[in-house]
C-alpha cells in the first residue's frame, strides 16, 4: 500500500514537470516582454517600453488588424457552411456520406506546407492571386472540418424525436431547424465559431504562402521579424497573441464541456 502511494505521488510530480516543460518558455517570453533591456539582461528591469514601442509600430498593428479581419470572415463563413453540412450528416443517411466525411481529413492530415504551397500554385494559376481574400479562402477550408467535428459531436446528444414532435405539431422543416435544432446546438455553435477563429488567428503556414510583401497577418510579420533578427517588440506582441488564443480556448472549453449538461 505504501509503495502504491509513493508511485502515485511520483506520477503527480512527473505531471508537474510536464506542465513546467509546456509553460516554461511561454512564461519566460512573457516576462522578457516586460524587461526594458533589449539584450534580455537579468535581473529584469520592469517596464512597458516594448508595449509602447508596439503601439507605435504601424506595420505590426496593420498586420494585427488584417489577422482580425481574416479571422472574423473565416469564423462567419466556416461556421455557417460547416453547421449546414453537419445538419445534413445528422439528419440523413445517404449514399456517399462516408466519402464526404472522409473528405474532411485531407485539410487536417496533409502537412500545411503542402496544402499552402498547392494553394499558392493554384490561386496564382487561375488568377485569384495572393492577399487577404486568398487567405480567407484557405483558412475557411482548414476550419470547416473542425466546425463539422465540433457541431456533430453536439448534435449526437440531440434527440431526433424532438424534431419529429415539432413536425407533427405542424412546424415546417425550416421552423424546426430554426426553433428546435439550432437552439439546442447553440453551445456547440459557439465552441465551433471560437475554434474557427482560433484556427485562422493562429494560422501561419497557409498565410505565409498567400501573403504579399505589403499585405500580411500578424504571425507572418512576426516570422519575418524573427528571421531578420532581434526585435524585442516581438516578445510583447507574441505575449498578447498567446493571451488572446488561450482566452479563446478557455471559452471553447467552457461551451464544449458544459454544453452536454445544459
Amino acid at each position, binding site marked *: 500500500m505504501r509503495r502504491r502511494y509513493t508511485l502515485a505521488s511520483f506520477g*503527480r510530480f512527473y505531471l508537474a514537470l510536464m506542465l513546467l516543460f*509546456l509553460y516554461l518558455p511561454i512564461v519566460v517570453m512573457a516576462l522578457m516582454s516586460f524587461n526594458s533591456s533589449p539584450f534580455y539582461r537579468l535581473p529584469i528591469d520592469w517596464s512597458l517600453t516594448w508595449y509602447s514601442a508596439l503601439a507605435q509600430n504601424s506595420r505590426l498593428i496593420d498586420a494585427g488588424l488584417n489577422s482580425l479581419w481574416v479571422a472574423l470572415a473565416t469564423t462567419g463563413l466556416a461556421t455557417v457552411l460547416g453547421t*449546414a453540412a453537419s445538419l445534413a450528416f445528422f439528419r440523413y443517411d*445517404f449514399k456517399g456520406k462516408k466519402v464526404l466525411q472522409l473528405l*474532411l481529413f485531407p485539410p487536417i492530415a496533409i502537412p500545411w*506546407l*503542402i496544402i499552402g504551397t498547392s494553394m499558392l500554385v493554384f490561386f496564382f494559376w487561375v488568377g485569384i492571386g495572393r492577399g487577404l481574400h486568398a487567405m480567407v479562402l484557405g483558412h475557411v477550408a482548414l476550419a470547416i472540418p473542425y466546425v463539422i467535428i465540433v457541431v456533430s459531436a453536439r448534435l449526437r446528444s440531440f434527440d431526433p424525436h424532438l424534431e419529429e414532435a415539432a413536425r407533427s405539431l405542424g412546424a415546417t422543416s425550416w421552423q424546426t431547424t430554426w426553433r428546435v435544432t439550432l437552439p439546442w446546438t447553440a453551445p456547440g455553435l459557439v465552441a465551433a465559431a471560437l475554434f474557427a477563429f482560433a484556427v485562422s488567428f493562429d494560422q501561419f503556414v497557409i498565410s505565409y*504562402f498567400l501573403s504579399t510583401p505589403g499585405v500580411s497577418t500578424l504571425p507572418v510579420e512576426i516570422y519575418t521579424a524573427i528571421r531578420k533578427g532581434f526585435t524585442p517588440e516581438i516578445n510583447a506582441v507574441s505575449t498578447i*497573441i498567446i493571451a488572446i488564443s488561450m482566452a479563446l*480556448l478557455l471559452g471553447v472549453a467552457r461551451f464544449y464541456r458544459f454544453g452536454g449538461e445544459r
Partner: protein
Amino acid sequence: MARSAVAGAPGISRSRLTTIMVLTGPAYIWLVVTVLLPLSVMLYFSFLSDVPIGKRVAVLTIENYAAFFEKDFYRILMLRSFRLGAEVTFYCFLFGFPCAYVLAKVIKGRWREALFLLIILPFWSNALVRIFSWTMVLRGNGILERAVNWLIPDFGPLGLMFTYPAIIVGLVHSYIPYMILTCYISLQAIDDHLIEAARSLGAGRFTVLRRLVLPLAFPGILAGAVLIFVPVLGSFMEPRILGGRIGTFIGTIIEDQFTAVFNWPLGAALSFIMLGIVLLILLIGVPAVRRVI
C-alpha cells in the same frame, strides 16, 4: 426510421436529395476548390519542365522526380527529415505516454479535467510564437544556461541554440500534447478491474504494462504517432528558427522552391514524393507493427 419523418416520405426523395445538396454543397464546393483542385494542379505542375506563367514554355516531363533519385542531396535530406520525424515521435511517446497514464489512472475528478485543459491549452495557441519562445530559453546567456551555471558553477556556455537538439526540443514541445491526448483517450477506456485482475493473478507491474496496457492503448499511441510524424516531416519554420544554418530539411528545401528559387515543379515533385513515402509507411508499416503487438 425516426429520421425519415423529418426527411419526408420515400416518395418525395427528390426534395430530400435537394435538401442534402443545399446543406452539404457549399462546404464541399469550398473544400474542393481550395484543397482538392489545388492538390491536383500541383500534381500536374510536378510533371512540368517550367512554371507555365507568362511566356515560359512548359512541357511534360518526369525530370523533377528523376532529380530526386539521381541527386544524393535530396535523398539525404529526405532521410534526415524522416529521422527527425521518427525521433520527435519517439520522444513524444516516451515522455507523453507516462503523462497520459498518470492523468487517466492516478488523477481523479475535477483535478483531472483542470490538468487536462492545462495540457491542451498551449497546444492550441500559436505554434510560431511557442517555437519563438524557446529562443528566449535556449539562447546564449538565456534562462537555461544561467540555471545550469547556478546549479553547477563554472559550467560554461551550453551552446544549445541553433543545434539539432534545439530543433528536437522545440518540436517535441509543439507536438507532445497530441500524444498525451490520444493516449489518454485510449487509456481511459481500459477497465481498471482488468489491471487489478492481472495483478491479483500474479502479474508484475512491468508485465501488466507490456501485456495489457500497451496493447490496449496501441490505437491511441498509433494515432498520436501519425498525427506527429506527418506534420514534423513538413515542418520548415521550426528548423529555421531553432536550427539556424543547420536547420536544412526537406521541408525547408520545398519552401525554398516556392518562395526563393521559384522552381515550383521541383517543389511540387518533392512534396508528392514525401506524401508517397508517408502513404507507403502507413499502408505497409502500420499493419506490420500491429501484428507484432
